[in-house]
């Protein structure tokens, strides 16, 4: 086929370029700009090179926040994925109750982050919250504003409450796409319930589960509003996750340079982990789980 050369075609790419420039490249570059300069106010900036990156990499504060963040994402994935699958497996496949389940399960997903935080903040309060009062009445020592463990339990349970539905709904969609014949063949082959799950349901769900895990990882890794509303990062720094720490640094202390360096590394970490996730999962998929 004859190839037509027409340089004017470049103009057609222009709108996209502009859009991406304003939505991503320019904001990102201002952050990069801050990360290599220092300022003492008056809008005067001095070249700082990689100093802020150095400082951040050797800052115990950032490493602590990062390990808390990894712990948080790890825990909620370990709970939400199996729980979501379990819920999906036990949902009715059709009829009135299937619709009821779907609506009920979508509800938490529709609530704004801020509201979710507020709900749990009040729910868990020892003086007026239903959960706090109940636990106190049962003689369980629970106070998320003072006790590190209680604070962690609260934010983890809150996230599980808010987001397990997403995993469950995706897994449910995967399950629904399995033709009846597979289950019938499994019965004929006398496969146990576990084998049906292992060799039919799980492989067929793998695609959507991969998306669910990626989404949940990225979202939880960037989580800010909910724990901030509930614990404000406390007690002490016990629930100060990466985003909370970043906001404290950038807006609380107005350390723009270090915060910018922090942001860039934060961004790279998410990219890196997501990429590793994706590669590992697609490879698993190819080899057949």
């Amino acid at each position: 086929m004859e190839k037509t050369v027409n340089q004017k075609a470049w103009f057609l790419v222009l709108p996209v370029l502009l859009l991406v420039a304003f939505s991503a490249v320019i904001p990102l570059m201002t952050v990069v700009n801050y990360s290599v300069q220092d300022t003492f106010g008056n809008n005067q900036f001095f070249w700082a090179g990689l100093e802020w990156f150095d400082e951040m990499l050797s800052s115990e504060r950032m490493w602590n926040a990062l390990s808390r963040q990894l712990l948080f994402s790890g825990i909620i994935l370990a709970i939400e994925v199996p729980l979501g699958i379990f819920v999906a497996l036990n949902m009715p496949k059709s009829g009135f109750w299937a619709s009821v389940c779907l609506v009920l399960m979508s509800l938490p997903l529709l609530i704004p982050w801020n509201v979710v935080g507020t709900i749990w903040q009040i729910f868990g309060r020892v003086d007026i919250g239903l959960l706090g009062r109940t636990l106190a009445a049962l003689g369980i020592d629970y106070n998320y504003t003072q006790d590190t463990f209680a604070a962690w339990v609260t934010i983890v349970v809150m996230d599980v409450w808010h987001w397990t539905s997403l995993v469950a709904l995706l897994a449910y969609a995967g399950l629904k796409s399995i033709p009846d014949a597979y289950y019938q063949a499994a019965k004929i082959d006398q496969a146990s319930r576990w084998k049906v799950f292992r060799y039919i349901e799980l492989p067929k769900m793998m695609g959507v589960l991969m998306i669910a895990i990626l989404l949940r990882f990225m979202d939880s890794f960037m989580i800010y509003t909910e724990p901030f509303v509930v614990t404000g990062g406390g007690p002490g720094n016990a629930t100060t996750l990466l985003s909370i720490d970043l906001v404290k640094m950038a807006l609380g202390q107005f350390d723009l340079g270090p915060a910018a360096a922090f942001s860039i590394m934060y961004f790279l970490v998410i990219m890196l982990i997501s990429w590793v996730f994706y590669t590992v999962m697609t490879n698993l998929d190819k080899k057949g789980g």
Partner: protein
Amino acid sequence: MAKITLDNLAHSYLPNPASEEDYALKELNHDWEDGAAYALLGASGCGKSTLLNIISGLLQPSQGRILFDGQDVTHAPTAERNIAQVFQFPVVYDTMTVRDNLAFPLRNRGREESYVAERVQEIARMIGMEDVLNKKARGLTADAKQKISLGRGMVRKDVNALLFDEPLTVIDPHMKWELRTQLKKLHHDFGHTMIYVTHDQTEALTFADKVVVMYDGRVVQIGTPEELFERPEHTFVGYFIGSPGMNVIPAKIDGTRAYIEGSPIDLGCGYDALEGKLEIGVRPEYATLSQDEGLPVTIRRIEDAGRHKIIRAEFFGHDINIIAGEDDPVSADMNRVRFDPAHVNVYANDWRVPGRAA
């Protein structure tokens, strides 16, 4: 291996079936003889798969009993019935190798690994997949997957029956022949009771000793291919089997004569006075063109099918198909059609009426 008895069996997918129309499978009594090869033939949606799923226990019938060698298994789960079933669309366990797929039913029943290996080899040879045994099943083509499904169905030697639900739909034509031959051979060698569901008459007639024809949730005829051809018990059988199907023409019956639009046709037998919708049925093979005797028809088209010609004719708006041999004369002045009296069947309300010897 077992004789399978259906006793007053019927099934409806509705919770409270009221009239007969609500039943996907209408009341049925039948024995599937031990070791016979049956084909279950009928148009899509006539209840074939329903019947098969009831036999294998995937479906609980709304009424009636099902017995294996006289033992009631109506409420026994699929696993206890020890039945193999192959479905229309390939079911393979994607994440397993071909070998593990074939071994799966045996391993689930706790057979010894050495026996499993030996059986898997044997089946792999039968379906021609020995060289891909160690490959994952997911990358394979649809017909390779279906061969695995077939293989999984055949891997157990001790099954009570082998059920096939239109298993060759997705297979290439030349492979179809080969697999069907393999199935016949398997039946010949091991004598399993086999039920083979299909809507393809060639497949049914070549595979089975006995063909069960279903229509609208009902078994309309059970017979050898020859019986189905010569004496269709129901107009549906006549029209469904044969290519083209039987000519079914409304007629008045009077003794040993039928009258179509007033023109007389000789019948091989005599009939008493009949009630209801009356028709005669003649296979195109038993209709011949003639110059001077029979019904005067309008010939609309002649199709040359190679070994024979199909003549599409019309008589007072009734279509009549005629099959003429390669060497039979066909000419412009032959515009009458004659039916062989011995092969004219009479139907009242779609069911064949046996005649008295004339």
